[in-house]
């Protein structure tokens, strides 16, 4: 066969070309399928949920009979979900970032301890969320909460800390989203050029100064990406809240961290399983789901905006 002959489209490569077309088609189809599913969900929810949305619906509380159109409002749930997500962020970012700093800046990569921690982080990411709920109940409420009650309020027969609460639900979510933040932060730290750290160290900066003044500010956008992922994951979670803080019904908004709260995701579950008349409740259900989706998007958008601002500022000032 001449060299020229090799470049001609022969039988073998014609079959290759066919496969190539088929494969391209398959990948396109898969993408289209995902887009279609997303579109069906969004359109369906928006279509049915939109009529239920009203100023009253998102700003009013609900009465004990929450299944009746006209009496239902979701403000307490919006409040509860927002509060637990923000609280969770406050817990998970410092702990996750500190862990990542330890792993990447201090620990020896080859040490047994480091490997154990990394494996633990990876496995933590794979634990089903209901298990986190049970963990929260066992560890935060019964182990920590009961002891806090014993120490702080020995004479009070009613538990204050040792019961489901906004605080415990947020902490449980923080534990659940910890791996996301750790991995994202480590990725951000790894992405910085090693010359950066050496430049600072060679000028006589201590490791702490280097991390605090040079490494962290530059890793901030990456850290925020971790925060965004954590928020996305946590905002729609229900299972971890079942035992740790979400209430079926509360007449008032939570006033302290030890109060329970109503939650949008949990409320969707309540509406769809506890209603005596599902047909009648359906508009409220759709409305609540739409609000949940919008809130999740809004929380994400906020985090993304913060990150974009920070990047801009870094580019301008740095």
């Amino acid at each position, binding site marked *: 066969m001449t060299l020229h002959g090799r470049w001609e489209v022969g039988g073998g490569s014609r079959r290759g070309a066919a496969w190539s077309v088929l494969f391209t088609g398959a990948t396109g189809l898969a993408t289209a399928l995902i887009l279609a599913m997303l579109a069906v969900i969004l359109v369906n929810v928006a279509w049915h949920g939109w009529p239920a949305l009203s100023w009253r619906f998102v700003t009013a509380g609900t009465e004990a009979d929450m299944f009746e159109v006209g009496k239902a409002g979701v403000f307490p749930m919006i409040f509860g979900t927002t509060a637990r997500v923000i609280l969770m962020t406050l817990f998970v970012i410092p702990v996750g970032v500190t862990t990542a700093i330890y792993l990447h800046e201090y620990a*020896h990569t080859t040490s047994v301890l480091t490997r154990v921690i990394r494996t633990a982080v990876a496995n933590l990411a794979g634990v089903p969320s209901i298990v986190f709920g049970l963990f929260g109940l066992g560890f935060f409420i019964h182990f920590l909460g009961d002891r806090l009650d014993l120490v702080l309020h020995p004479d009070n027969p009613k538990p204050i800390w040792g019961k489901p609460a906004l605080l415990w639900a947020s902490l449980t979510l923080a534990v659940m989203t910890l791996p996301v933040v750790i991995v994202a932060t480590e990725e951000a730290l790894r992405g910085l*050029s090693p*010359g*950066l750290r*050496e*430049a*600072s*160290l*060679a*000028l*006589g*900066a*201590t490791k702490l*100064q280097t991390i605090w*003044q*040079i490494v962290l*500010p*530059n890793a901030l956008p990456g850290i925020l990406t971790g925060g965004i992922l954590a928020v996305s994951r946590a905002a729609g979670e229900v299972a971890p809240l079942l035992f740790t803080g979400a209430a079926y019904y509360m007449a008032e908004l939570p006033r302290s961290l030890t109060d329970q709260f109503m939650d949008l995701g949990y409320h969707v579950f309540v509406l769809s399983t506890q209603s005596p008349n599902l047909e009648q409740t359906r508009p409220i259900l759709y409305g609540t789901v739409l609000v949940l989706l919008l809130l999740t998007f809004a929380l994400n958008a906020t985090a993304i905006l913060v990150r974009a601002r920070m990047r801009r500022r*870094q*580019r*301008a*000032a*740095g």
Partner: protein
Amino acid sequence: MMDLSITTRDLNLWYAKFQALRQVSVEIKHGLITSLIGPSGCGKTTLLRCFNRVNERYGYVTTTGEIRILGKNIYDPDVSLVELRKSVGMVFQRPNPLPLSVYENVVFGLRIHGERHELERARLDEAVEKALSEVGLWDDLKDRLDTKASTLQLEQQQKLCIARLLPLKPEVILLDEPCSALDVDGTRAIEELLFSLKGRYTMLIVTHNMAQARRASDECLYMLLGEIVEHRRTEDLFLHPQDPRTAEYIEGRYG
């Protein structure tokens, strides 16, 4: 006899099991430019990085022997790395300005070391002007002190990396192939800058470029396999090498 800036005695260094420096005993004279040459892997960069102990960042490095800088053994347990690195500055292969403004790059050292009273704006301004003037950047950059250092040209970045050492009044400046990322003009500019700093600072420059060592240094150290083969005035080393290995290297028979 001239003052000595750095003296090492029986310096040995291992990366885990691999011995990178063998019985290095050398005397570096104050105020001169001394170049370190030798084939890749001969230990010249390792030796350079011993002088500010930046090697120790990696846990698997073992060092024995003695390095005296300003009469003090820098491997003594009571030595403060912070103080050491104030007096022994370093310039890297790739210009690595900190991701801050030009101004903040120059005063970074002062900020992390300085007492509060030393950090008045006027003092910092003065330090910036002085340091940038010394490296010949002041006229170009005086109106752009707030721009991000990484937006400068590479040559300016490398000069800035030298400038940011100066406010700390270093005794020694270590340069690890400082021109390898620069073009011909940039290289010439840096060499001229080093020449102008001569006398005030002791400079050690690692280079792959033999012509550069010849042009730009007063003394030259030839290293091979972790050992110092020859250390003499640059001119003598290139014209009358004593050791046959040096002669072969500078003739380009290996490397």
